[in-house]
Structures are given as C-alpha cells and as structure tokens.
C-alpha cells in the first residue's frame, strides 16, 4: 500500500472515495466530533430557531416571519449598520495590529516581548467594564472632552453612535489579528526571504511581496474572526446605547418581548447565515494557495536593527497605539480606586475600600472562572486540532461540513445559546432529580462551543503552514500515523495551539451573555457574573471595577505563564536546527 496520498486525485465509486485515504481511526474521530457538535450546538440552537419558522402561538410552520423581517425598516437598517460597523472595525483593528506585528517581528526591538504581551490585554476585558471605562475617558463628558472643552471650547464625538461602537470594537478585538498575524510571521521561513534577497528584493517591498503573503492565512484568520465577532457582539452596542444593529435587536427582542416572539429568532437566523457566509468567503480567499514551506528553518524572518530616526518614529507610533489600547484598563484601574468620579477629568479622591469589600467575596468566583476557562480552552484545542487535521490531511467526505458546522458556533449569539441550553437540557433530570442544565459543566460546554471557532481557525492556520511532505518523510521512515501526529505535527503546531488556547481561555474568562442565562447558583458563578451583579448599583461601581481589575490580572498572569512555558519548551525542542 502506498503512503496515504495527501495530494491524491483518484476518482472512483462513492464508497471507495469515502474510505480511501482514511483509516478507521479517522472516521471514528470524525463521528465523535459530529456527535459532540450535534448534541451541544445543533440541537439547542434548533430548539430556538424552530420558533422563527413557526407562527406565534399556534406552532404552525410559516415563512411569514421572514417576510416581516424584510419589510421592517428597523431590521433592514440594523442589518446594514451591523455590516458597516463590522467592516470598519476590521479596518480599525488592522490599523492597530499591523504596525505592532510588523515592528516586533521585523526589527530587533527592546520591549518587543512586552508589546506582544500587552497586545493580549484588550481581549481580557469583561465586556461591561470596557465600555464603561472608555466612556469615562472618551465619552461626551469624559476626561478628554472635558479638557478639550476647557482649553479649546470644542468636543470630539469619539463615542457618538456607530463611531463609538467602531472605536471600542477596534480596540477590543484587534488582538485577534495581532496574535494570528504574529504567529504566522514567526513561522515564515527565513530561506524564503533570503532567496528573495538574492534576487534583489529588500525592505518594505520584500515584506509586502514575499513575507506578508506567506503570512496571509494568519491575517485572514484574524480579520474574519474580528468581522464575525463584531457582527455578533451585543455587550458593546448595548452599553453605548446603539440599538439599531442586528445583535442588540435580537437580544432585546428575545429578552424583553418574550419567548413567544418569533422575530428575535428570525434575527438570530439572519445573524447565523450572515456570519457563516462571511467565514466561507474568507476561506475562499486562502483555499487554493499552498502556504506551506518545505524547510523548517525555524526562527521566522530575519530581524534587523533600526536607524535612530526610524527607531524614534516607531517608538512614538507604538506608544500611541499601546496607550489607546490600554485606556480601558487604565480607566478601570482608576475607577476601582476612585471614591467619586462624576463629570470631572479624574476622580475626586482615592480609596482601597473597594478592594477590601471585594476580596472577601470573590475567591469562589475566581476559582470558577479559572476552572471553566481552562476546561473550555482544552476542549477547544483538542477538537480544533482534530478537525483541522481531518480537513487538511484526509479526504473524508463531509469533513469540510464539520469545519463549517464548528465555525457556525461563532454566529450564535450567546443569549440564544443560553436559552437553547436551558430549553434542551432542563427537561432532562439526572438520577437524583436535579435538572441537567443546573450543572456547572453545562456552562463550560457553552463556553467551549462558543470559543471553538477561534481555536479552530488558529489550529487550521498553523497546520496549513506545515508541509505534508514532512509527514510523508516520517512515514517513510516507519512511523505510524498516530505517532507522526504526536511527534511531528503537534510540536510544529505549538505556536498555533498556544494562540488558540489563549484566545479561548481569555475570552471564556470574561464572557457574560450565555453565562447570565445559565448561572443558577452563586457558587457556580464566574467573575463576569459577579461583576455584572456589582455594577447594578451606585455603590457597586467601585467594587465592580475592582473585581474587573482582578479578572484582568488573573487572566493576564495565566496567559503570560502559559506562553512562557510553551516558548521555553519550543526553544528547547526546535530552535537548534536552523539552516546555516
């Protein structure tokens, strides 16, 4: 039997095509993943989406609700607004991420590591507090505008309407592009660069025509994630009181008009369809191009030193970006120490009383958050790697469908998933009568399912950059498929795996929409929920901000620690076989 054909174009009968090029192991993995996704993604969502196709009250099948959707000005307007905001947020996020990625991977840069770490922080911002903190700085009567009004008698509308949403979302989500692009740049082989230099290319032109296209999978992965995430996000528009976008409309209808209203579910269906379409379009962009490089030189592109003037400009630009990106965290920190902050550039006074109040009460929240987020991250990269491997390395029929199905989880609003889980699982009692949905494991599954697409894209991009011929070489030397994957593929994918785990972990730790529907007892509640409860009263702003700071610190420490461990491991394993 020949080595399993990875570039195999054999035709044949359906059965032979299904089973050629696939071992039983691969088929059973695919079926297991399918079962998992069906049980925890498709079925809960189906119970909710079914309402969109039924007539209110009587349950009869009808398409009238969709007709209503397209005839309602408000919904059409919301749809275009969502598209506009998502697109502009991608532009804004790229403007923030690309200089950072370019400078830190291209030049020897003091503080490059620090910048990369700081680049993760926006992800770790609980949705509520990020917008609150930014309002304090950039709102109509925030720090910047009060000072501008005092000195120059004018104000800037940073946070007015849709612009405010674009501003906040660009800052909040640019790490997706930064992480994925940096990982991809780090994996680009030096020999490609040297070959281009031998042919006379250099500088920015070299970057633009050789290095960046090779890193394109990373950029596209990040950009499509930003687009879909912004399209689907509801915390930010709601907090900024922008209601004419699709996600807030769905949320508002589902949670206020009630369970019998089909329009909220129709909007959810539209959200899902739009997101899936945009993910498909982005996959088209990178599909037929081979990004793998054969030699694993390791170490990424060569780093150069900057001339003094360039250095000064680079530092200035990067400092500006970093300050902007850290504004919500600084605002949060100030709020957590503030006595009263009302219509003034800075708080009236400072105190540590909020932290004292919070420390006593929050150890259970911290424990729950770490547990849930880690479990969700692990589940995600395991499944993400499995799906990427099946898609890129086998010819199993329907495997692309599995990919799309997993990615569709992105398009499900958290509140829809939460309600779906309640509906689907509450009726199932366990052996002692407590309902299945009241177990905390259901929260973990909801978190894992919603984060799966991020991990999947990261694993996919990482695997795309590994040439199949490396695996063929291993098999020629006698390794089995399993040990090839274990000893060759996974170690080479480490960068992508880390990126996937970090995005899953960090965003799961601060998620609120599904959590709010599913938390049923205080002892199961994570930090984001505790924070939400605090922020519902005047005296709770300070303690709520303190809890937010604690959340950010914990998640930041965990991600830094995990990155350090992986980097050290990677350098020990692979750094030595460079090609010189």
């Amino acid at each position, binding site marked *: 039997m020949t080595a399993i054909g990875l570039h195999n174009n054999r035709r044949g009968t359906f059965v032979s095509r299904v089973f050629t090029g696939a071992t039983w*192991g*691969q088929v*059973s*993995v695919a079926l*297991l993943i399918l079962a998992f996704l069906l049980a925890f993604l498709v079925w809960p969502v189906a119970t909710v989406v079914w309402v969109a196709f039924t*007539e*209110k*009250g009587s349950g009869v099948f009808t398409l*009238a*609700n969709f007709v*209503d959707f397209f005839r309602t*000005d*408000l919904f059409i307007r919301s749809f275009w607004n969502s598209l506009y905001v998502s697109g502009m947020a991608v532009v804004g996020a790229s403007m923030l991420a690309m200089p950072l990625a370019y400078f830190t991977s291209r030049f020897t840069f003091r503080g490059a590591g620090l910048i990369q770490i700081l680049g993760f922080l926006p992800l770790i911002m609980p949705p509520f507090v990020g917008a609150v903190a930014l309002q304090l700085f950039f709102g*109509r*009567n925030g720090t910047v505008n009060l000072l501008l009004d005092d000195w120059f008698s004018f104000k800037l509308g940073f946070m007015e309407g849709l612009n405010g949403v674009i501003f906040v979302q660009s800052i909040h989500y640019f790490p997706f592009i930064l992480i994925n692009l940096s990982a991809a740049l780090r994996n680009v082989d030096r020999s490609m660069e040297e070959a281009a230099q031998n042919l006379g290319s250099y500088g920015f032109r070299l970057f633009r025509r050789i290095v960046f296209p090779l890193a394109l999978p990373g950029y596209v992965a990040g950009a499509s994630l930003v687009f879909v995430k912004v399209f689907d996000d509801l915390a930010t528009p709601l907090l900024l*009181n922008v*209601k*004419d976008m699709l996600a807030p409309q769905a949320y*508002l209808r589902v949670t*206020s*008009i009630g*369970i019998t209203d089909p*329009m909220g579910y129709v909007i959810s269906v539209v959200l899902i369809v739009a997101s899936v379409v945009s993910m498909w379009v982005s996959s088209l962009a990178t599909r037929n191009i081979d990004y793998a490089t054969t030699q694993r030189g390791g170490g990424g592109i060569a780093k150069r030193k900057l001339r003094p003037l360039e250095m000064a400009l680079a530092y200035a630009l990067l400092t500006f970006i970093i300050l902007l990106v850290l504004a919500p965290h600084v605002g949060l920190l100030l709020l957590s120490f503030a006595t*009263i902050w*009302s*219509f*003034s550039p800075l708080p009236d006074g400072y105190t540590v009383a909020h932290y004292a109040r919070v420390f006593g009460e929050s150890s259970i929240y911290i424990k729950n958050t770490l547990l849930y987020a880690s479990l969700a991250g692990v*589940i995600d990269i*395991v499944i993400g*790697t499995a799906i990427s491997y099946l898609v890129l390395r086998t010819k199993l029929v329907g495997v692309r469908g599995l990919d799309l199905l997993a990615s569709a989880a992105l398009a499900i609003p958290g509140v829809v998933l939460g*309600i779906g889980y309640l*509906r689907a699982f*509450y*009726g199932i*009692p*366990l052996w*002692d009568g*407590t*309902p299945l949905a009241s177990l*905390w*494991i259901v929260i973990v599954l909801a978190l894992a399912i919603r984060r799966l697409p991020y991990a999947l894209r990261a694993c996919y991009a990482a695997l795309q950059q590994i040439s199949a011929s490396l695996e063929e070489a291993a098999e020629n030397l006698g390794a089995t*498929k*399993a*040990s*090839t994957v*274990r000893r060759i*593929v*996974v170690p080479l994918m480490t960068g992508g795996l880390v990126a996937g785990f970090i995005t899953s972990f960090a965003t799961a730790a601060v998620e609120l929409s599904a959590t709010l529907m599913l*938390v*049923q*007892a*205080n002892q199961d509640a994570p930090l984001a929920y505790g924070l939400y*409860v605090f*922020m*519902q*009263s*005047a*005296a*709770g*702003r300070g303690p709520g901000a303190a809890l937010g700071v604690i959340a950010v610190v914990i998640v930041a420490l965990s991600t830094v620690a995990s990155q350090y461990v992986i980097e050290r491991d990677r350098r020990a394993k692979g750094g030595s076989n460079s090609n010189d």
Partner: protein
Amino acid sequence: MVKRVQLAKILATALVLGWPAASIAQPASGKISVVTSYAKDLTDPIKKAFEAANPGVTLDVQNRNTHAGVKFLEETKSNNQVDLFWASAPDAFEALKAKSLLQKYKPKATGIPEKIGQFPINNPDGYYFGFAASGYGIMWNERYVKANKLPDPKEWQDLAAPIYYDHVAMAAPSRSGTTHLTIETILQGEGWNKGWATLREVSGNFREVTERSFGVPDAVNSGQVGYGIVIDFFAFSSQATGFPVKFVYPSVTAIVPANIGIVANAPNKAGAEAFIEFLLSPAGQVLLFDPGIRRLPVNPSVYDKAPAGYVNPFKDPRLNSMVKFDVKKSEGRGEVVDALYDQTVTFQLADLKQTKKAIDAAAAAVAKKPNPKAEAALKEARSLMEAMPITEEQASSPEIVGAFAGGKKKQKGARQAELEQQWASFAKDHNAQARAKADEALKLAK
C-alpha cells in the same frame, strides 16, 4: 495523536458523568433560593440580618433583571428549584400569577395597612406581597447642571422645555418594569392623548434611552447625562454613596409597592415563608433605611426610627394625592404600550430629536415675531409630532393585545411585527410632516 484524542474523549466523558457525584452533596433544608432583580446593595444587608436571625439557614440570591427572571421561571417550571421571586414591578408578578407560577400565602405579620398612597400593598388574592414602596421622579447631576447653566425641573412637562434638549435620559419601558410604571402613571394621570403628547415632547429632549434601569442613574452619576427619569431609591442611594445628585417628586406620580412572592412548587416552602415574615416584621422593615437601600417601608410604625428628613408616604400630603393607578388596565395593555414607545421613540430617537429641534427653533422665532399664520403652522407641527397611531380603546382591544400575547388560537388581524412596522412608519411619516410644518412656520416668522 488520534488514539490520544480518543482516549482523552473517553476520559472526559467519564469525568463529566462522574463529577455530579461529588457536587450532589446539597444541603438538605436550610437553603432558600431567591431570583431577584435587586442589586447586592439591597440583598446583602437583608441576607446578613436574616441569616443572623435564623442560624442554619442560607439565602442563595440569584440576580437577574425582571424580564429575564420571569423568563427563567417559565423555562424551568418543569423542575423548579427557586423558592422566591423578589422584584419591583407588580406587572411581572401579575404575569407570573397568570401563568400559575406563584402560590398563595397568608402572611402573619401585623401592622401593615391595606394601601399606600392609592395603591393596594398586597395582591388581593394573596399571591404576592408588598414589602417596600417607591415613587418616581427626576434626578440630576449638580456639576453638569452648573457647568451647562441649566434650571432645576419640578414637573414632567418641565423636561419638555427647549433648554433641556439633549440633556435627559430614561430607560426603555420594555426593559425596565419601573419605567414602564412611570409611563403608565403619566398615561393614566393625564389621559391617553395628553399623556403621549407629554411623553413625545419630553423624549425629544433625550440624549439616550437606556436598555436597563440602572443605566439612567449610572449615566447621571458619572455626568454623561444631566437629568434622569428614575425611581426614587436610585437617587437616594447615589446620594448616600456621595455622588453630587439631587432629586424631586413631580406632583403626577404614584407610589408603588415593591413585591415578593413564593414560586409554585417551591422546594423549601417553609423557608420561603420565614423569609417573607422576616421582611414584613419591624426588624426587617427597619433595614430599608440603610443608605445603600433607601426604600419606603410599608409598616407605618417604623418611621419613628427613620433618619432625619426621610419622606413618610403615610403622612406626606404630596405623596397621597396621587393618581389612582389601575393595575389591571396597566397589565392588560403592558406589551402594547412598551411596543408603542419603542417603535415611535426608542428606535427612532434621532428622528424624533431632529423634529423637536425644528419645532423648538420655530417656536423661538414665532415668540420673537408673533404671526397668526406661523402660530397655526407651529400648532399643527406639534400635533403631528405628538400624534399616536392607535387610540386608548384600540390599545386594550383583543386583536392588538392578542397579537402581542401569542394566544393559542389562530389570531385574526395583523401580526405583531406588522403592527410594529405600521407604528414605526406612522411615527416616521408624521415626524417628517411635522418638520416640514415647522420649517414653514420658521419661514413665516422671519
């Protein structure tokens, strides 16, 4: 790798199924589960005092906004684990009662009168009970008002004045039970047409319509907005925290009780009853004076222990001459009123604001140079802006209410989404016409 993945999956499945064994060590009795819309500032002191008075008992408080709480009880009724529902809006309790999600109880506490203001304290059928009362009013940020040189308001209509343009905020009635009651109070107090006219004029001055109750005092506290239409305890607790805010009760307002009820099939009925007795006892009522809470107790005798200057709804004449509030009427048309407001104001705020601005500009010009034709055009513009797509009778009619309620039988008449689109385009068209008339008036007055 594949084998490892399979093994990991098997282990994970085993863990998932085996884990519950560890967490099933639930406390037998002594745990009382409450779903509430109240913030920690209220629930914490009460929880502490209750647990101190009843050793061995734990109160597990789950915080959800009123709508989400009602939905949660509906979704989980097949295997209910919640003992008490504790929230402000009587509408929510009526909705739960209608769905048979509450159970009857007769409290043993004494000293609690039948009514507060014009409002019955307890549900006559015994399904839910008032434990505190609150009124509605206007709060504002002193620094903001000083910096922008604005006057203090006294009545709802004051907020419609041109000087308050873009300085006011309110929560959407569909998202805030208490705001919904405020709107109903205005509608019942001033009549349907005049009430909506006031609402539209005031809403034209809004900077934002928030999607949660607390969004308004939050915005006023931080100075993002100048004035907020809020329930009184938001303002009092902000003041107690130290924020520079002031508050006033307008003369057309209602004092409404905040309620608690026992959920049907409660796992710990005895515990739930004990908690209600505690809340209604003098020991529990006195807790309501706490600076973080600042509600009005329903037991008149505890007001002897009130802090200085604390308003007493049983003695204060202002709070007693208020509108007779018809709960049944309010609850019957609740969803319709919410949708009307949302479609004509919340989701068209920019449009409405433009219209108000045009009318105010025309009014200022006409005031300077009086002109009967211009005044007529201005009057027409105003009535166009204030027009509503349906009358009061239609709002309570079975066809329209049925479209929103989703009854079992196939409804005749328009669907909810169709109605909403009708009302939205009605408002849009009338706003555009109003703007045209206002511009006409402006030209005539020049």
